């Protein structure tokens, strides 16, 4: 995609993991709203910790990423007790 520049369609985008889901055009807004509402119903501090760990981990070697996760998990369990 970087060198060739040729467009790819939704089916191929799904196959290569560029998108996570393909729906009929008329359902796109409802589908996004449903996914959004499902995520919004989760505990925001837990969602934030998971996203922060993923973003931080993307920059790190695996062993360090695992320590980031462990620290985040410990903070969350501390907050829960």
């Amino acid at each position, binding site marked *: *995609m*970087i*060198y*060739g*520049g*040729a*467009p*790819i*369609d*939704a*089916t191929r*985008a*799904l*196959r*290569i*993991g*560029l*998108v*996570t*889901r*393909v*729906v*009929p*055009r008329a*359902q*796109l*807004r409802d*589908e*996004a*709203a449903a*996914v*959004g*509402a499902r*995520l*919004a*119903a*989760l505990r*925001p501090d837990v*969602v*934030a*910790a998971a*996203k*922060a760990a993923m*973003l931080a981990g*993307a920059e790190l070697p695996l062993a360090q990423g695992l320590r980031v996760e462990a620290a985040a998990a410990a903070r969350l369990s501390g907050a829960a007790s």
Partner: protein
Amino acid sequence: MSDAPVLYEKTDAGVGWITLNRPHVLNAMNMAVRDDLWVLLQAVRDDPDVRVCVIAGNGDRAFSAGADISEFGTSPSYTDARRARRDRDLWGLMLSINKPFVAAIHGFAFGAGCELPLLCDIRIASEDATFALPEVTLGYIPSAGGTQTLPRTVPPASRER
């Protein structure tokens, strides 16, 4: 409906909707869009009632056809343009927000219109969506994160085209 270049609304479910709203130019992202995104992303970040952000495009034909090339070359100088980008790192701001982003993609998702979804956590496409990063064939490179986010998202054998 408002003619603002980007629309924003909050739902009772805690979802903030950012909608690109320049359908007459396939939601091309000009400086006005970037200005609005800069403000709205901070609103998403700072509003505890907003737990998730959905990004979508208005109109029938495109999520976004990418940067508005009609503005290319209008900056006083190349270095001014580069400085404006560095001082206001829109894509870095997105990645600093620990709330899930959902891209709802229809029609053209080209250039920055493909890269913006790549900065989201979940990408939902409609059947008519098409994706491309045409920058290199046009003599420049993706500059909304694409050279970094695409290889982190799509496996090497899938990137050939």
